């Protein structure tokens, strides 16, 4: 069937293009969030921004794994998400009680 390979090729190109556009958007969003941390209305807003940077970075790694067609970036995103959770909990505890333990 001559048409099937063409459709498959078009869908693959479309997927790579959309993933690249989404990657550029996510990098722009991470710049916006870093600017937001630097502006810092209150201390809780800076903590929200630090939590959000790591979440957007996990999204960037996942999109890189789609664009590069490689699953090594998921292995990078896994400990990043776990460490971001632990550090956010520790910083929120420090913010509330002014001590960690």
């Amino acid at each position, binding site marked *: 069937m001559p048409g099937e390979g063409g459709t498959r090729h078009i869908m*693959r190109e479309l997927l790579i293009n959309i993933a690249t556009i989404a990657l550029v958007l996510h990098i722009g969003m991470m710049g916006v969030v870093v600017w937001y941390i630097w502006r810092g209305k209150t201390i809780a807003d800076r903590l929200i921004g630090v939590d959000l940077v790591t979440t957007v970075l996990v999204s960037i790694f996942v999109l890189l794994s*789609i664009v590069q067609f490689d699953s090594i970036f998921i*292995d990078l995103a896994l400990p990043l*998400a776990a460490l971001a959770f632990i550090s*956010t909990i520790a910083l929120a*505890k420090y913010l509330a009680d002014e001590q960690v333990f």
Partner: protein
Amino acid sequence: MTEVRAFIAILAIIIGTLFSLIGVLGMIRLPDPYARLHATGKIGVYGSVLLLVAAATWTPLGWGRAIFLIVILIVAGPVSAHAISSAAHRINLPMKDPIRDDLLEARKRESSNVEFFE
């Protein structure tokens, strides 16, 4: 079959990126930290998870690691949001136009009870 997988991946990428854009827009525009946490919770739970669904259907990944990361994100996102909002309420950050503040009343009642028993 490749077309179906690519179609699912394209749909998930578009919806997840829209959720992330709406979340960052809400973080910029909403007035106080509690409302901003309401907006940023969507990025961790919907944006990243939908992008992970796209990556798991498209790349040679296997669903094991993807489901492990999805479970980490779904469990950790609301817990860290609750921790940040509880810390912000503990250090008395003001709420913009609150209708009622149940947690503040409960804390006042609890502290008055402690003083009464001591």
